[in-house]
């Protein structure tokens, strides 16, 4: 991979919280490595406490100062000659310049993401003027343009509205418009549709796809729902208990999921065929995602895995291994299982 078509490379990222070394708790995410290509939509999929949100906040540099972060987050320049930056080595000021400008983020709950005491226009203009040297009038004009771009019908009316006057879907669009105001190369969307109704969710997903096509930006889309992921993803990264357990192109993932956990996730979703055929029972796995202190020593999925073999899986963390072209999986038995 040349630098030019990769936006972001994360290498060995670990994040821990709480007390220092002697009685430290295990890191919340461990050895997370992946890369994002230009114009690619990467879906980070996992259940609660899998570490997907911590990963995204680490990329943004929005973790509390008490977090212990190690590893490398390389942000590559657009042109071949442009230097690559390791975000974790940057000063706070330099980091700030990247935020919103090269990497931006939208969050899950659009109800609380807008400041209730300022109008939409006020907040959008604030961000536009921060990123670009613009006059107030010009920024207002551009703000209307951005709202139009995210599919808001009467952007000039919307600019004058207060946040509470808008519906959830509208607010999420405004959020996306604000995230785009700095013309970022990479947009991180943390469960942006979870709080929305299905019909609105579909619209927002379509919007993200369209914006990707128009602007060529990359998107890291975080979700717990594989069906949502399948709707927009180019690449699927599955996280479980703080680790990446599968990283694959969407096509390969949905045709040949290699990790038993990924299969379990897919099985847990009611499919259209099941509904059509009146089939009532889902295939489930027992147990829960292990808590931070209860993570097993070997494969973290082993206690819940139907294919687990004690001698093979219960000791020594398995590494990510290739399971075909552009397909990595953290399972020692993937070949036998697939067969």
């Amino acid at each position, binding site marked *: 991979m040349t630098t030019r078509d990769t936006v972001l490379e994360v290498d060995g990222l670990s994040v821990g*919280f*709480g007390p220092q070394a002697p009685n430290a*708790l295990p890191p919340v995410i461990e050895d997370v490595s992946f890369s994002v290509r230009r114009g690619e939509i990467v879906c980070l999929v996992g259940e609660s406490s899998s570490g997907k949100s911590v990963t995204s906040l680490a990329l943004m540099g929005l973790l509390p100062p008490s977090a212990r972060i190690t590893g490398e987050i390389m942000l590559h320049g657009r042109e071949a000659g442009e230097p690559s930056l390791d975000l974790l080595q940057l000063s706070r000021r330099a980091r700030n310049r990247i935020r919103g400008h090269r990497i931006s983020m939208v969050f899950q709950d659009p109800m609380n993401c807008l400041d209730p005491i300022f109008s939409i226009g006020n907040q959008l203009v604030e961000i536009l003027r921060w990123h670009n040297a613009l006059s107030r009038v010009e920024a207002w004009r551009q703000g209307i343009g951005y709202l139009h771009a995210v599919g808001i019908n009467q952007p000039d009316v919307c600019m004058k509205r207060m946040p509470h006057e808008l519906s959830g879907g509208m607010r999420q669009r405004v959020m996306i418009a604000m995230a785009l105001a700095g013309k970022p190369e990479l947009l991180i969307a943390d469960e942006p549709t979870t709080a929305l109704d299905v019909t609105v969710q579909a619209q927002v997903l379509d919007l993200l796809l369209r914006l990707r096509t128009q602007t060529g930006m990359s998107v890291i889309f975080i979700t717990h729902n594989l069906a949502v992921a399948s709707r927009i993803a180019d690449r699927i990264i599955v996280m479980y208990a703080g680790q990446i357990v599968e990283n694959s192109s969407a096509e390969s993932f949905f045709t040949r999921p290699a990790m038993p956990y990924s299969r379990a996730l897919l099985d847990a979703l009611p499919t259209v065929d099941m509904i059509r055929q009146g089939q009532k029972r889902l295939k489930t796995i027992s147990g829960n995602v292990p*808590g*931070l202190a209860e993570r097993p020593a070997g494969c973290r999925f082993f206690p819940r895995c139907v294919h687990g073999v004690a001698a093979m899986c219960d000791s020594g963390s398995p590494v990510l291994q290739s399971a075909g072209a552009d397909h990595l999986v953290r399972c020692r038995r993937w070949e036998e299982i697939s067969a």
Partner: protein
Amino acid sequence: MTGFVRRSRGLMGALTRMVMPDGDRVATVSLVFVLGMIVACTAGPWLLPFSARHIDLQHHFLPPFSGAHLLGTDEIGRDSLARLLMGGRASLEVGLIATGISATIGTFAGILTGTGLGGWPVRWLLQAIVSLTLCFPAIFLLLTLASIMGPSVPTIIIIISFVIWTETTRVADIQTRTLMQKDFVTAAIGMGATPFYIITREILPNVLPAVTVTSTLNLARAILLESYVSYLGYGVQPPDPSWGSLLNNAQEYLVSDPWLAILPGLAITLTVTAIGFVGEAVRDGLGLKRERA
């Protein structure tokens, strides 16, 4: 991000965490200080060689650390330490009893309004009383009532309780309202529970932590109020000392013997501060939110 620290439950948990070595240092010191003060004021006067009323005109205005009088003597040679401890006894007594009364009434009234039991007349009446009390600056009200009813320890206790119960009511009311919205209360209603059952089993145990915290802060406030009233001459009457009345006396001798003013004031400040910190630590330990308007 839960589950980092294994949390023990309830009030005892909050207290034990406070005295644990890796706990909140300020809170630990505060707790020890408050307990020490209570013990000293309760038992202290018996252990000292001088009674608080022992007059010794030969040795008046002694500075601290002079011979047998550890903290010196006052204008008629009474032992300062003995008077300080006796004064503390009165102040703490007033504070504790007033807090107890206001907590009981306040919790009851707050739950009553919070659950909406008794309908609008009860709510309206309580609301009216609370607004009316809040209309007057607490000290104005205290002094006027004390002057009309005649100053004595029981009247002071009643008046202070009357001034501070509104805070407990407010907290209990807010807590109860929040709890009434919770699914577990809905579930109890759905299971056919009577209002009495819901209040005693579901509401009260969950209101008590917040009431405890408020009461701690109320105790601090009650001690302060007592000192104001006594300082201004409408509280505990001489020759019985209280921290406030000791200061009333001391102002005259500020030029010659500042110790008489500094020591009781320090006792009030430190005790009230310590109670405040204990209250905050308990609140944080119970995971309650900071005070809001």
